[in-house]
């Protein structure tokens, strides 16, 4: 890769990686497995970058990376067939297609979420930090926070609903 290509790749990857990660973690429930797959996809994307022709189209690059991710997810699922929480192949295909259709909205949704997250405080924010920042499951979070934590699953579900509603509103209003 020459300097221009490195810059182009890094810029595209920086914009796409969170959405690519979202695609991977939508099919692979373990954060650590999803992390490993993301690194693998990144490596493949670097090696095959000369095949990607759409100059600086970030959405097209994200879709291209998701095609690579789909292959790696299916291979991972095949190798990890003992994990019964994974989806069957046809479901991964359906989710892939849905992600491809959603790709024009990736940036808007990410920006909207960043704004909406600022509005989440207190216990809701603390539970999200422990779940996503520390990678703890709801049981472990409940144990850590004790009685003052309340019902962690309920707090998480409520937070998701709030964030989802906030994102949809911002996108509808064009304020993402």
């Amino acid at each position: 890769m020459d300097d221009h290509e490195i810059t182009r790749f890094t810029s595209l990857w920086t914009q796409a990686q969170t959405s690519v990660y979202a695609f991977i973690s939508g099919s692979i429930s373990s954060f650590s497995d999803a992390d490993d797959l993301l690194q693998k996809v990144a490596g493949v994307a670097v090696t095959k970058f000369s095949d990607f022709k759409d100059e600086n189209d970030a959405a097209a690059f994200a879709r291209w990376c998701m095609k690579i991710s789909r292959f790696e997810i299916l291979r991972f699922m095949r190798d990890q067939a003992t994990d019964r929480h994974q989806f069957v192949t046809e479901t991964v295909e359906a989710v892939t297609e849905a992600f491809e259709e959603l790709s024009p909205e990736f940036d808007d949704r990410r920006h909207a979420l960043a704004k909406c997250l600022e509005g989440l405080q207190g216990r809701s924010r603390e539970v999200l930090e422990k779940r996503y920042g520390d990678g703890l499951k709801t049981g472990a979070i409940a144990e850590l926070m004790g009685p003052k934590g309340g019902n962690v699953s309920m707090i998480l579900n409520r937070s998701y609903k709030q964030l989802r509603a906030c994102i949809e509103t911002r996108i509808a209003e064009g304020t993402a």
Partner: protein
Amino acid sequence: MRQDIHDLIIAHLNGETTNEQAAELSEWIRADKTNAKAYAEAALMHGHLRSMIVGQKSVRESGEVPVEIAKVCRQQKPVTSERRPRKLALVGAGILVAVMLIAAAAVHFSRPDDESNIANNQRSQEQFATIEQLSNVEWPQDSAREEGDRLGSEGLRILGGVLRVRFNSGVEVTLQGPAQYHLESIAQTRLESGLLSAVVPDGAEGFVVETPDLKVVDLGTAFGIQLDDDGDSVVSVFDGKVEVHHADESKQLLTEGQAVRLSRRRRGLARAEYDTAPFEKVWPVSSGIEKSTGAFEFLPPWPQRSRAIRSDTNIYVATQSRTFTLPESLAVNISVPGRYARPDDLTPSQIPAGTAFHVFSLHYQPERAEGPGRYRASGSITFNRPVLGVITQHDELAAGMLQLDGRVAGPALEHRQLELASRNDMVILSEDRKTLTITLDTPARFTDLVKVVVSAPSLSSKP
């Protein structure tokens, strides 16, 4: 979106659904494109949350740009001001720079799922095996493990049932309870009590199982150890060769079909009768078979049989211990889930070259070699891993025989294929690709043969 579906999606993204719930969600997603879109939106938010919160945490804790990126920048050659990019100095080093930056970005996401980051990073580095399959395992209280659990240097104790462990090296050990087995490292283990079989692939030779009195070093490929209640140890070699070391420093080299016994009463190693019967319960699990119903009976992987067993009522299942990875594709007749009762139902396809798989032969041959009448047997068999394809017809059976066994098919093979045209035979491959339900119907003088190709982990894949 229905509340219950929303809750199910969230539970699944957080890895907290049961098998049934995951299957229900899977079916819901596939039912309609709007459902798939709803799931994708939730998954997108889930993934974005992870990257945002971890990224914010990283910046909070370090107070600056992640170290790896800064290091990469310092390593770059100076550039002219006209060429310097605005965000990062990305000159020099080529692909290595891009990969390091990606690794630096990916470090945002490198967070384990368990309680303590440091403890779990250490644990994940020390983990070198996975519990691949459990069959009716009884655990001591509060020590139950699950399929998929990763193992490091630790002990396993089971009160009953059969358990299979796969090491990162590709070695597979199957334990029959009651048993106590200690994993010390990827190549060093100890059997305190019970019975085990071990299959050691090429490249993993040197795998060791110690017992209180012996050390067994595998030189490739498969062996079994049985410790009985009297304290006697029996080592049997199913395939390849092993070295058996005794505490008194004597050692013996054993090859396929040989066995030795160390008796507590009589000191020293003595040749023993080679007997695979004690390992009967282990074979299905060590082969990757979860369960079976109906007419299925399992043949031990060793010794490899050249002539088939006859039975009016049983379909025999035979497998080789080796993992195949062919340089060319393998043709199959059934490649998708469904019911196959007519020739038109077949879904021929090719398993791509380089795919790792195991092969199971299902064989039905009535005892009577001649006479009128037909014989029928049926049952279902569930594998631990997905079925990639099923070979039922002559041309593909012959091609497979050549590719897999290096043998040319004789004229008798034509009569061994499934008779779908006359609707006597039937195969059903389940939606999850793991269960095969078969009915085989054959006249006295003929045999039915079906080859099942099941996915196998490749040695290069990280468990």
